[in-house]
């Protein structure tokens, strides 16, 4: 039972929860309220929250995943370790902080395309890919990736021939997936750093492939 003791000076049309009615929007108010209550209980420290946000906004991103892929492309032993136990292989990069779940890396081949989704709640491998793009969180992607992966790939510009198998990996709270895309032709002899620069987020979710920019290069 909340006490509504304050007047609603700008109230009109009985629109109590209308966002225009409050200086702070509904969700912003609720977040502030929750944060202040949790801070009073000693359960969160606003400074720690800022650090978490900064980490995920600026320091973690698909670049972590790109370095992992580039190493798998250049170091066959690492590739084997990654495919056998991605959680441990990713931990070899000391700077990647693991989250609560185990990681699995799945490899694209000329015969197999992999696609990652979280049909339930948009779980995403943050430590290696940063925060999910909006489309990954959309109803459309979550629903359609499972029932019509080829259609989804097509929407992303990927016309996958019928003779290529498409595997869909549905993430859970305990298990998250990343795709190791195929290394493009024309990158023989490239350094790990140079390869990492061409690995895209979409290719590691499985909706894209890695290409060498035409006209650029050597």
């Amino acid at each position, binding site marked *: *039972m*909340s*006490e*509504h003791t*304050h007047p609603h*000076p700008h109230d009109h049309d009985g629109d109590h929860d209308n966002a225009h009615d*409050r*200086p*702070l*929007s509904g*969700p*912003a*108010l*609720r*977040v*502030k*309220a*929750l*944060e*202040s*209550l*949790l801070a009073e*209980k000693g*359960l*969160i*420290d606003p400074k*720690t*929250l800022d650090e*978490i*946000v900064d980490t995920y906004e600026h320091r973690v991103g698909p670049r972590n995943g790109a370095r992992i892929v580039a190493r798998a492309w250049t170091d066959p032993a690492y590739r084997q370790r990654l495919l056998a136990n991605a959680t441990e292989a990713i931990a070899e990069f000391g700077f990647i902080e693991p*989250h*609560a779940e185990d990681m699995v890396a799945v490899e694209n081949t*000329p015969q197999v395309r992999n696609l990652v989704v979280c049909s*339930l*709640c*948009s779980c995403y491998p943050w430590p290696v890919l*940063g*925060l999910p*793009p*909006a*489309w990954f*969180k*959309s*109803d*459309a992607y979550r629903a*359609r990736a499972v029932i019509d992966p080829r259609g*989804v790939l*097509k*929407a992303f*510009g*990927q*016309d996958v*021939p019928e003779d290529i198998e498409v595997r869909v990996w549905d993430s859970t*709270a*305990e298990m998250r997936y990343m795709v190791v895309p*195929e290394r493009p*032709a024309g990158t023989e002899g490239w350094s790990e750093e140079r390869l990492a620069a061409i690995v895209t987020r979409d290719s590691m979710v499985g909706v894209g*492939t*890695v*290409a060498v920019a035409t006209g650029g290069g050597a």
Partner: protein
Amino acid sequence: MTISCPPDANLADLDALSALPRDDAGPVFRAPWEAQAFAMALELHRRGVFSWPEWAATLAAEIAQARSTGEADDGSRYYERWLAALETLVARKQVVGTADLSRRVDEWDVAARATPHGRPVVLPRR
């Protein structure tokens, strides 16, 4: 062999494209509260207030419920569900009750109204 199709050929697939929002490198958070809500869930998990499977199940339930009421989400409302899941879980864990929370929301609302534009909003000391 890498597959690369001319993008135009696929733009014809209007049905598939119209249903799938795309982005290239848009901001990961659209408003500060989204980032704060995100961070609060991570921190409460780190402190052991709830397990990650508990979190994921609660979030999945919020998303499913929003869908069942016919609310379509192109991904832009994800953190609204995230926040709802957070409120649900702290109430269930008896960390912050619903009544306490809505009272505090009203207090912040009053404080925000009383604050001149451009100044930080603070709650009066009690």
